[in-house]
C-alpha cells in the first residue's frame, strides 16, 4: 500500500514537476540572459492557454481534420499558440520594458501593471463568464500503465513534451550560433557587444522564446492538471515560477528543471498525505521558497547571485 502510494507520488510528481519546470523556464531564461525580472511571464502562461483553448475549439468546429488522427488538432493549436504568444511577448517587451532597461524598480512595476492589462484584455475580448473559466480539453484520452500506476495519457504526453522541450532548448543554447550568442550575452554584456552581437535583437528573441515557453507550460498545465484556465491564474503561475527559480537558482536552466521536479514532488506528496489540501496548493511553493532561502540561499545552481 505504502509502496504503491510512493510509486504514484513519484510518477505523478515527476510529470507535474516537469510541467512546472517548463512554466519557470522562460522566466529564468530571461533573467539569466538579460537580467530582467519579467513578471509578465505569468500572464503569458494564461494567454497561451487561452489561445490554445480558443484555437483548438475553432479547429474542432471547422472540422477539416480527419477524425482518425486526434493528435493533429492539439499539436497545431499548440504550435500556433506558441508562435502567437512569442510574438505578443516580444512586441510587448519592445514597446515597454526595453525602454526602461537598467531601471529595476520601474521594470518590476511596469511588468506587474501590464499583467493587469492582459487580464483585462481577456475580460474584454472573451466576456466575463469565459474569463473566469475556460475549459481546456486534455491532449489525449485514455490511460497508460507506468510501473504499476495508472497515468492519464495526456499527462504522460505532457511530461514527454516538456522533456523534449528541455532537450531542444539546451541543444539550441549550446550548439547553434544564436544560442551561443545568448550565452555570451549572459556572461559579459560589453564584450559580446564588441563581438558584434546585437543586444536589442537578442533580447527580443529571448523574450519571444520565454513567452512561447510560458505559453507551452500554460497549455500543458491547464490541459493535464486543472482542465481549464481562468484569467486570474497568472498569479499562481508567477508563484510557481518564483519558487522553481529560487529553488534552482536565478538564471540557471538546469536548476529550473531540478527545482520544478522538487516542487512537483513536494506538492503531490503534500496533497496525497494531507486530507483536503487542494486549497493549500498555492501555499506549498511558498514554504519551499522560505526553507530554501534559509538553508541554501544560492539555490541549487545559483548563478547571478552574490551574498552580501
Amino acid at each position, binding site marked *: 500500500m505504502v509502496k504503491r502510494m510512493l510509486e504514484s507520488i513519484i510518477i505523478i510528481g515527476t510529470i507535474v514537476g516537469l510541467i512546472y519546470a517548463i512554466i519557470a523556464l522562460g522566466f529564468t531564461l530571461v533573467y539569466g540572459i538579460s537580467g530582467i525580472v519579467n513578471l509578465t511571464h505569468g500572464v503569458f502562461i494564461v494567454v497561451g492557454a487561452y489561445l490554445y483553448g480558443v484555437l483548438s475549439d475553432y479547429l474542432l468546429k471547422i472540422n477539416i481534420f480527419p477524425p482518425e488522427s486526434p493528435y493533429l488538432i492539439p499539436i497545431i493549436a499548440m504550435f500556433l499558440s506558441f508562435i502567437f504568444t512569442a510574438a505578443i511577448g516580444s512586441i510587448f517587451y519592445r514597446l515597454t520594458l526595453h525602454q526602461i532597461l537598467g531601471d529595476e524598480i520601474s521594470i518590476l512595476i511596469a511588468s506587474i501593471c501590464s499583467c493587469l492589462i492582459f487580464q483585462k484584455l481577456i475580460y474584454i475580448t472573451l466576456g466575463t463568464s469565459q474569463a473566469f473559466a475556460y475549459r481546456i480539453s486534455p491532449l489525449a484520452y485514455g490511460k497508460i500503465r507506468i510501473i504499476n500506476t495508472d497515468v492519464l495519457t495526456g499527462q504522460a504526453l505532457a511530461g514527454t513534451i516538456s522533456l523534449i522541450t528541455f532537450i531542444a532548448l539546451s541543444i539550441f543554447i549550446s550548439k547553434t550560433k544564436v544560442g551561443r550568442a545568448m550565452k555570451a550575452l549572459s556572461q559579459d554584456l560589453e564584450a559580446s557587444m564588441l563581438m558584434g552581437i546585437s543586444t536589442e535583437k537578442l533580447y527580443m528573441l529571448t523574450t519571444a522564446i520565454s513567452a512561447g515557453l510560458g505559453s507551452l507550460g500554460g497549455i500543458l498545465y491547464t490541459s493535464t492538471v486543472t482542465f481549464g484556465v481562468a484569467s486570474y491564474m497568472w498569479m499562481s503561475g508567477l508563484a510557481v515560477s518564483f519558487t522553481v527559480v529560487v529553488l534552482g537558482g536565478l538564471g540557471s536552466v538546469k536548476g529550473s528543471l531540478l527545482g520544478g521536479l522538487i516542487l512537483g514532488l513536494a506538492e503531490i506528496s503534500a496533497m496525497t498525505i494531507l486530507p483536503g489540501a487542494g486549497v493549500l496548493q498555492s501555499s506549498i511553493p511558498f514554504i519551499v521558497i522560505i526553507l530554501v532561502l534559509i538553508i541554501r*540561499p544560492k539555490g541549487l545552481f545559483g548563478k547571478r547571485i552574490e551574498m552580501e
Partner: protein
Amino acid sequence: MQTVPIARYFRKIYTNIATHIYDRPPRTLAFLIIIMLSILPYSGMDLIKLEILISANLIAILAASWDLLVGRTGQISLGHALFFGLGAYTTALFIKYLGWPFWITIPISVIVGAGVALTIGIPCLRLKGPYLALVTMAFPLALQGFLYYYRDIFGGETGIGLPKIFPGLRFFDRIVANYYLSLALLVLSSIIIYKIATSKTGIIFISILDDEIGAKACAINTTKYKLMSLAISGLFGSLAGAFYGHIVSGSANPRLFVDTTALMPMEFSLIPIIAAVLGGVGTIYGPIVGVYIYQILYRYILRDVITFNIFGYIVTVDRHMQLFIFISFIVLLIVKWPRGVARAIVEKLEDLEEPRELEEILKEKTESKQM
C-alpha cells in the same frame, strides 16, 4: 523687440513655486490642506461619500510606507497587501480568541507586522537580486491557502468579524468620528514617515538606493538599514490594515490579501504602486496625493457603465474596459517617466532655461553668418 515681460515674470514665479513646493512642501501648505480636509464633514458634504475618503486616508498610510521602502531605499515590495492583511488578521485573532479590547490588539498587530517584515527580510535581503519582490508577491497568495485550509480558525472566505471602534455612536456620527480618526492617523504617520525619511537614517536609505557599494564603502551596514526600512514599512502597513479592518471592511478577510475574482485582483498591493507612479516615487507625500486621486477617480468619477454616443454609434465602457484604459495609461507613464509624473514635470521646469531676448538670438545668428 522684446518678449512680454509680464509673461516672463509669471513663468518665473510659477517655476519657483512648483520647484519649491515639490522639493520641500512648506508647512503652511500642508497645514492648509489638513484644515481643508478637517472641515470637510461640516461643509455640506454627503456623509456616505465621506466613507470613500476614510478608506483613502487609510490606504494612503500604506502607500506612504510603501514609498519609504521602495522609493527611498530601493528595495522592491510587490505585495504590500501582506502587511495590510496581516494587521487586520492579528487584531481579529486576538479579539476573537482572547477577548482583548482593540486598543491593545492594534499595537500588537503593529508589532507583529514589523516582526513579520523582519523575518521575511532576513533571508531575502542578504541576497543581491529581486528576492524581496518575488517573496513579498508570493506571500499573500500563500497565506490565502492557509486561511482557506484552517477554516475553523481563520473563518474561511468571510473571515473574522471586527468590532467597531465607536460602538456608541449613531450611523452618521460614527462616520464623522471614523473620518477624524483616519485623518489623524494619516497626518501622524505621514509626519513620522516623512521625518524618518529626512533624518540621517533616511539619508542612509537614499544612499543605499543611489549607490549601494558606495554606501558600504562608507562603513554603512546596508543590510541592517534595509531591514530597518522594511520593518518601518511593515509597521505602518499593518497599522493601516488593522484600522482598515476595524473601520472600513468590518472584518479581517482573505480579500485584504488577494482577491482573485475582484475587478482588480491584487488591489492593496497595486494601489500603492499606482499611487506612487501618479504622485512621484520617493517623495512620501506624492503617493498620498496619488491615493486620493485614485480613490476619487475610481469611486466618484467612474461609473459602472459609461455610454458614449459617437456619430450615432453607442459605445459602452464597462468597469473592465475603464480599468484596462487606466492601467495602460499608468504603464505608459512608467515607461515615459519612470520616477513618477509629478517629479518629471518638476524636473522639466527646473531644466528650463531663462527665456532669452530675441535680440540676443538675432545677434548670435548674424555673428555665425559672418563667421
